[in-house]
């Protein structure tokens, strides 16, 4: 079970969180013209990366904040965690 540092609550066990997928995906702006391909990429197409991955987790049974977690998908090493509004870079 992973041990995730929630930027709001501190180190908490994985069973308090739910996984939210790739954090680098940006929703296209409302009312924005967008091609079918771009929209499909946003809704469906994800890379299944091996290695460093920036992802979203929802601290569901804690502070209910969505957070960003940089994790290695093969070793489960967590490099850093960020608040939702913190810059990814």
């Amino acid at each position, binding site marked *: *079970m992973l041990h995730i540092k929630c930027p709001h609550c501190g180190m908490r066990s994985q069973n308090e969180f739910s996984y939210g997928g790739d954090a680098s995906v940006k929703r296209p702006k409302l009312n924005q013209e967008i091609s079918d391909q771009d*929209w499909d990429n946003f809704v469906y197409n994800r890379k299944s990366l091996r290695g460093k991955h920036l992802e979203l987790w929802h601290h569901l049974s804690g502070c209910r904040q969505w957070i960003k977690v940089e994790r290695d998908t093969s070793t489960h090493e967590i490099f850093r965690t960020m608040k939702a*509004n913190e810059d990814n870079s």
Partner: protein
Amino acid sequence: MTQNFRLKNIGLIDRNKKLTFKFNGKSYYGYKGDTLASALLANGIHLIGRSFKYHRPRGFFGAGVDEPYAIVQLYRNGETEPNIKATEQELFEGLEATSVNCWPSVNFDIGAINNLLKMFLPAGFYYKTFMWPKSFWYKVYEPFIRKAAGLGVASTRHDKERYEHKYEYCDLLIAGSGPSGLASAYAAAKNGARVILAEDKSRFGGTLLTSEVKIGNKSGKEWADGIISELNEMPNVVVKNRSQVFGYYDHNMLVMSEKVSDHLPKTKKFHPKQRLWYIRAKEVLISSGSIERPLVFGNNDTPGVMLSSAAKEYLKIYGVLVGRKPLIFTNNDSGYETAIEFKKNDIHSVVLDTRKDPHSEIIDEAKNLGIDIKNSYVVVAAQGYKKVKSADIAKISDDKTKLGSIENIICDCICVSGFWTPTIHLASQSGNKTKFNEDIDAFVPGISKQNEKTLGAANGVYNLDETLKSSFETGYELSKKITNNDNKVSFPNVIEKKSSTHDKFWCVPLPKGKNYKRFLDFQNDVAVSDVEIALKEGYRSIEHVKRYTTLGMATDQGKTSNLNGLQLVSSIENKIVPEVGHTTFRPPYTPVSIGVIVGREVGKHSKPTRKSPMHSWHEKNNAVFVDAGVWLRPRYYNQGNENLFEGSKREAKNVRTNVGVCDVTTLGKIDIKGPDAAELLNRIYTNAWLKLPIGKARYGVMLREDGIVMDDGTTTRISENHYHMTTTTAQAANVLSHLEYYLQLVWPELNVNVVSTTEQWAGAAIAGPKSRDLLQKLFPNSDVSNDGLPFMGYMEGDLFGIKARIFRISFSGELAYEVNVESDNGNFMWEKIIEVGQEFKIQPYGTEALSTLRIEMGHVAGSELDGRTIPYDNSLEGLLSKKKDFIGKRSLTREAFIAEDRQKVVGVVPLDKKTSIPEGSYLVKDSNAPLPNPKLGYISASCWSVEYDNPFSLAILKDGKNMIGEKLFVMSPLKNKVIPVEIVSSHYVDPKGERVRS
């Protein structure tokens, strides 16, 4: 029966506490502190069971967790448990156990005929034999194999015992309380670290309990006892016996199972039988020790052949002799230690050492004691069927390939030692890359992946001095890193006898003309010849060899057999062992009961049960409950002898003619506040929300980004910046997460807060033509007329002094209202509604009537909004705003979603107006068409229309828009039904929706 093999003056058992127990129906006695194994051996019992495949007699091989043979069916306090290791089960008064895998008895087992047929049962036997004919597998082969094979029998009764889960954090978790565990725990604890020390046995100390050493001026056991009593006094230390750390998971999470009550005749009141610990440790020290390896020779599975360390343990801890004429067969000095212990108790043993001319302090001591030692000697085969009677021995050539002439030597047990295998399971589970250590012919931990270190014998270090030094040092260093303290304890002086190097020899060649079975895996009956066949047949990977031969696959997971198997594969393949590699170590290290894994989440506790504030009223009024997600909701209220069908029909009819009341507390409720609340709703819902006036409710549909309907419900504007959203019962949690996702990640600029208020409000839906009359009486000071409170209107009211929210919304299609009060007042509200409603013939109605009412009105719900349908499919396309964008809108233009013949919700009526239509049935054009019969749609919900008194269903049907009036067939292969039906509008009752506005 008397304990003929119990010695008088040796052992750690409590001789003042005599315990009686039964094995295979016969009574025996032992002492407190015995295991079932030691108590049986004290009584001279060596025949415990039959082997898995050949049904050969089985005795005891080890004295602990590594035991491959002595598996019994245990009876305790009226319950039974299979696959219990007799070597681990502590004796208690009244214990009963029976042999497994034998019939009719362990002494005369019919299955032993397999032993005579063994040439027909080679490796991969099942794969090769039971292939044909295919239909025989289920009917003939499988039932037969299942009966013939297998170990104990699981109870089919509900387990009444209680199992608990516990979460714990610590600085250092130390697995194993042998010398390295005790030393590191002591050093770390003295330096202020929070330590958990876990020992799987009942006694602490590991090998210190049986080895002849001095630490300071104390014996090993005295030193261990001293450390443990000091640790027990320290507030920063948790010391646990009977606790097996069996799994090492990510981020230093380890799982331990504690056998709290298994050693007692029955579990104490309010105590668990077992407890599962989830331990998050900053650092882990693995001090799990090592397991002695067998030597491989003919008939080495005969009862009486056992590990020399086990013989020593039975002697020194339990005062039990495993034999009076022991033969000791060893390739290292450990065998001599056992011989010396025997000698001290006046038992004369013969030692066969495979080495030519070994020298060490231990060997010298044995020589001085006059022990008979034969160098360059091996056991060729054990003789005897149910117990060792003698051994064929021979001299072996220096290159270990040629045997001298065979001699027979009388003995009643053969104690074997093939050197020691470090227990690296936990280290390997943690992700540690193990490496092969040529000096000890075994794998040891290599590079750590997590914060873990392995100490002592588990790390391949077999001398006490070095073990204690490195363990003290490691415990100190790690604790210093964590606590920043610098409190170092002094290191004791160690006296131990030095040993010489072991012989790499492990497998005795077969003598000419003999084909004795030489077993590698004792529980699964895998012999040297089976592995040879597997390799001849082309299996190369050790993982494949394992699965084909079942080597190492039994409940002991090859604790005694893995390394010898690897040695064999590598010698046949002419590879070195590290090239062959080892199979993967996976948790659990040793079998763990399902009960302790499940914990307290069993039966009705497997999920939380949520009840509305009116629950006790429902109970008192004969409600029959149904699970609705985690909620318990009344399905119908039983009157007299009526069944579900009659009861729900009565309730639904009463709503259509008079007035009914339904508990709708379970609906999800979300409070939305903030200046941008309307903007949020406008983006989340498909319809327009910016102009909703205060005091008005609106129905809304929300989509996922892929265009599929996520949920529906009404949202009411309570005040300028305050909205009250309702969701379906099932989706309440998901909708809240959905809103939080967009507010926190996509539109952080919106100034809105959302919070769940599901539990804060109790809700009652009042529906039926007389509902307004009832409402007026409940709220005499409010104007609830059609003008005062129009359809989709909202007001606050005073319910006999209680603040209430009144919504004019309808799910039943009737004139209807929903009243919400604070949860604490829910029961008051409900009783008032029932009381005042008497004159209007009010009846409560449950979820079944609720469904009937919505289905015949054509209102879609969870069974249509099932995660596969878009708004058009549910005839909700009128709610899609063309003027604004919303979540999921872009997806609705996908080709399949705008296809001409897109599926749509329709009504379905059986032509005979009598036959009920099963939910989930298919709709087809021709019921006699050849398979696969093209499926046009499916029945999503069915009811008995109370309005028309005939069955009515909703269906999602291909090209539903153009199918009204068509005659089709409903097919239910599950219920074996074919029903001719007519497709009608989904709005079966009141298609214009006049009643709700009346």
